């Protein structure tokens, strides 16, 4: 955790609000919400790629989204898994 700073009270208030809202939601609905948020993130990522590369075809946009997600996974998993090729 970072040392408290001038924004800490605001950060705490935002966190408190998130926690209180989460307590109002059922576990089952929050589980599914994670999938819906990913779908929303995909839409936004596609929009970002189109804005950055307006000449891209839809196939190229999709390929770039896949590449970026793969990169995120690579960073998150770095040093966390060892891979073996099947015999």
């Amino acid at each position, binding site marked *: *955790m970072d040392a408290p700073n001038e924004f800490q009270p605001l950060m705490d208030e935002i966190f408190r609000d998130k926690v209180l809202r989460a307590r109002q939601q059922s576990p089952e609905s929050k589980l599914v919400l994670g999938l819906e948020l*990913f779908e929303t993130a995909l839409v936004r990522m596609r929009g970002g790629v189109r804005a950055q590369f307006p000449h891209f075809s839809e196939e190229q946009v999709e390929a770039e989204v896949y590449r970026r997600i793969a990169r995120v996974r690579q960073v998150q998993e770095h040093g966390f898994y060892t*891979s*073996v090729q099947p015999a």
Partner: protein
Amino acid sequence: MVTGGLVSNAHGIARATHDADVAVQMESGGFMAFAGSLPAALRLDPQISFETITGSQRHIIELSGSPFRIELFFLSADAHHQERFQRRVWKYLPDLEREAWIATAEDMIIQKVRWNRDKDRDDARNILAVQGDALDFAYIERWCDAHGTRTRLEDLRRSIPPI
């Protein structure tokens, strides 16, 4: 048993998750039959990987037309993984019209504190804050002591503002 980000969401604060982690108890012969029975929209990645902390064997299933994927973890001999699997709970998921075993909030915290990546610490802190006094802290502390992660747990608890 469903675990990972989806179940962290269920017990804590929902965030986008790009995979579904599932812990499975299966013989190798059974797994080959399972892999052979997958529908065409699901593709089993032939590459196998091992999680470095517990040695859990991971297989990845890719979904056709989506970057979302399913990660299957064979139940390992790790003592906490064994107990976590025994403590799993059966849930009906009305939005999916499915029933599933899911890991408990306590076991998610223990696992996340043990993995200790940025997103794991966030997930563990969120579950601690949302579940509050409903958690079995004696159980969590016992496993964090066994894993040598008690200091991490206490740091997370101290970081939570009064709710």
